[in-house]
């Protein structure tokens, strides 16, 4: 089916019809199932299968729609099934529940209590998404749409006003006016650097040359961050529409979406979306009867975090190693094949149709003076409500961790929140009332980054955390510049000594000195931000470092060389479960008598600790 609309009005007319028909659908029976990568990992496909079978059994398969969507954001309780039109929110649904959902909720219109979300504070069961504490402080300008559409159906996207922004731009706005609007909104790059988007577009537009490229950076390499994945899987058209508008504003007719290799579902859904756009004549030559031409190519990465850096990404698109190069010249002047190139993050592009549709003023009213709009964060780690969270800039860290995140599981004590991925720092409890915006986080020695927010508790060792990030960056560094490559290696060497109990007091000063060198003199962003986790943990958790060095103790019980596993005789029931699982046969004892761990054989793997049901195995 290939439609070629002779003009914008004809396309708008079709969109109008689709939107009308969608309005009627909203009062009909519908089962919405969240099925992004994490939903699928938790078995959503089996749930969908079971629902389909059940509906067929009751001859309802033609009457009741099943809408398969991307991530809803509350990953902790996936798979989620929302029953419309009453908007009943069922969580952690299993395939066995499908029969009951169909017979009770669809047919008998009854709510199944046991599938409802229970507020852990009040014990109350909650029927609707909007009443769940996790969602209440969020402003889901982008993510809310994930619930409303099947990402593989362009009609669903059109139904929620999709491509209206594109039509408005092509019909009524000149390229410079689009750029002005984006500048006015105050949108800043959501990939990490936070550079004003409108200004970036302007640089590229003004650059000399007829051939210009635009790129969507979907290389989301920060471990613990998956916002871009959920946007691309759940609403790829929003990103693509943003790119079309950007291409028009900048004067580009060719774009790339660079997706990391580890996101196969995102690649699949984006390619489906592009095919549908081609069918509707929204790509190619003479889009909607105008003289605007645009084509998009999807390029997959091959496992290199450094390719999230703009110049490395450009090298990768050109088929080379992802080695960054010094700037100037900037990509806006000389990017892919030395042509002016504008690179933006997935979330940045997704915000564009929103800004055009709702206006720059609307956007700039959300957030703080210098950080406008909403930002999606991935709230993960030692937190009760793990998931994707979209909040207005300016919310505090405390609200994120406690109000939205629901606090720390198992009544453990909060220790730090790590923002910005491997380029960011760890923020301790005393700064929980800091507002989440670009400047405030930077002032604390961290960064906003792409939005990863990892919560850590008393059982997390901050020295181990610094080591973890440096190990990651050592693997991911391209290795070209000496300060990054040798610097990170030597920093790790010192940290390894510290975590193995052979650290010296002067090590801290050496870490700081070397860290400053790597930060100041490395060529690209990876090296320049590599010491952040280390320097911030030394700044805020120095006593933990000193405990490792002076007392040879790891208070969190993580650094193996400094931890001893020990069985408390009084608590041990002599069941022998630990002895059975010990890989080194280091546990000795007789049935019904208390067991002991032979420290000379113990490799500190922790399996006994995991196994014991009586809390008799402790770390000290």
């Amino acid at each position, binding site marked *: 089916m290939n439609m070629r609309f002779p003009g914008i009005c004809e396309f708008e007319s079709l969109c109008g019809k689709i939107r009308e028909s969608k309005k009627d659908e909203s009062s009909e029976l519908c089962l919405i199932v969240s099925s992004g*990568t*994490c939903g*699928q*990992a*938790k078995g959503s496909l089996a749930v969908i299968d079971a629902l389909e079978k059940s509906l067929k059994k009751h001859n309802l398969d033609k009457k009741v729609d099943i809408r398969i969507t991307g991530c809803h954001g509350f*990953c*902790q309780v*996936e798979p989620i099934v929302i029953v419309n039109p009453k908007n009943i929110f069922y969580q952690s649904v299993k395939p066995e529940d499908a029969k009951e959902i169909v017979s009770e909720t669809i047919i008998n219109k009854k709510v199944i209590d046991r599938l409802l979300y229970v507020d852990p504070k009040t014990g109350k069961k909650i029927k609707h998404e909007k009443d769940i504490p996790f969602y209440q402080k969020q402003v889901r300008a982008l993510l809310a749409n994930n619930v409303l559409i099947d990402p593989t159906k362009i009609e669903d996207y059109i139904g929620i006003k999709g491509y209206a922004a594109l039509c408005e731009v092509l019909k009524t706005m000149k390229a410079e006016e689009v750029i002005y609007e984006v500048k006015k909104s105050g949108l800043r790059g959501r990939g990490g650097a936070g550079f004003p988007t409108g200004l970036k577009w302007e640089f590229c537009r003004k650059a000399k040359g007829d051939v210009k490229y635009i790129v969507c950076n979907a290389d*989301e*390499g*920060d*471990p*613990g*961050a*998956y916002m871009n*994945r*959920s946007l691309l899987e759940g609403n790829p058209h929003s990103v693509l529409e943003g790119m079309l508008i950007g291409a028009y504003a900048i004067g580009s007719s060719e774009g790339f979406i660079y997706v990391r*290799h*580890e*996101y196969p579902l995102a690649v699949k859904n984006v390619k489906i979306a592009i095919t549908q756009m081609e069918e509707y004549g929204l790509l190619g030559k003479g889009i909607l009867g105008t003289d605007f031409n645009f084509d998009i190519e999807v*390029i*997959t*990465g*091959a*496992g*290199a*975090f450094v390719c999230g850096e703009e110049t490395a990404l450009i090298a*990768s*698109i*050109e*088929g*080379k*190693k*992802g080695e960054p190069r010094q700037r100037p010249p900037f990509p806006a002047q000389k990017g892919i094949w030395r042509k002016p190139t504008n690179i933006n993050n997935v979330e940045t592009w997704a915000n564009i149709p929103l800004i055009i549709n709702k206006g720059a003023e609307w956007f700039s009213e959300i957030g703080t003076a210098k950080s406008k709009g909403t930002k999606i964060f*991935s709230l*993960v*780690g*030692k937190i009760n409500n*793990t*998931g994707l969270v979209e909040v207005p800039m300016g919310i505090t860290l405390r609200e994120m961790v406690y109000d939205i995140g629901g606090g720390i599981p198992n009544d453990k004590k909060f220790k730090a929140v*790590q923002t910005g*991925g491997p380029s960011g720092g760890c923020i301790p409890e005393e700064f929980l009332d800091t507002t989440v915006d670009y400047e405030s986080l930077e002032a604390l020695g961290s960064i906003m980054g792409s939005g*990863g927010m*990892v919560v*850590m508790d008393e059982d*997390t060792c901050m020295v181990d955390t610094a080591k*973890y*990030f440096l190990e*990651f960056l050592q*693997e991911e560094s*391209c290795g070209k510049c000496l300060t990054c490559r040798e610097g990170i290696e030597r920093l790790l060497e010192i940290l390894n000594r510290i975590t193995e109990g052979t650290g010296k007091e002067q090590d801290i000063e050496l870490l700081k000195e070397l860290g400053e060198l790597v930060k100041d003199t490395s060529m690209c962003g990876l090296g320049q931000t590599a010491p952040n986790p280390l320097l911030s943990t030394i700044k805020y958790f120095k006593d933990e470092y000193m405990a490792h060095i002076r007392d040879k103790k790891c208070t969190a019980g993580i650094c193996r060389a400094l931890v001893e596993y020990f069985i408390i005789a009084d608590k041990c029931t002599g069941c022998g479960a630990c002895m059975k*699982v010990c*890989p080194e046969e280091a546990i000795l004892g007789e049935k019904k008598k208390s067991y002991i761990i032979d420290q000379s054989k113990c490799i500190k*793997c*922790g*399996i006994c600790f*995991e*196994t014991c049901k009586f809390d008799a195995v402790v770390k000290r």
Partner: protein
Amino acid sequence: MMEALVSVESILDKWNNEDASLISILLDIQSECNYLPKEALITVADRLNIPLIQVYSVATFYKVFSLKPRGKNIINVCVGTACHVRGGQRIVDEVKRKLNIDVGETTEDKLFTLETVRCLGCCALGPVVVIGNTYYSYVTQKMVGTILNKYKKSKNT
């Protein structure tokens, strides 16, 4: 090996012998052959008319590529930050112990290859292990043996 070379030729045709598509070409070859055979890389350099060292350089730079044959089941343990904080490294250690291989290595019977990845974007389910298309969530050290046995058994059937 001849069959492998035939598919390499057709992959190169698909990408029009464009050297800018080198990474996509290598990804397709790896998909087809489960690793990047030496002969394939030589053919690619030849057909794209670029130095062999350039192809080899790119093939060794990106982590996804393997220049050694890999096992039937690729065990991907996520060691992203969220999974790490929940003990992901211990899962890696347990797999290493159970299979007697290191990260990046393949068991002698070619049944398993152990790899790590950061991150899969399933942080709510950590620690996560992916084998083929199957995701395992909330993995504990004890579960590792049970999971591996499933694949050992299916090899025998």
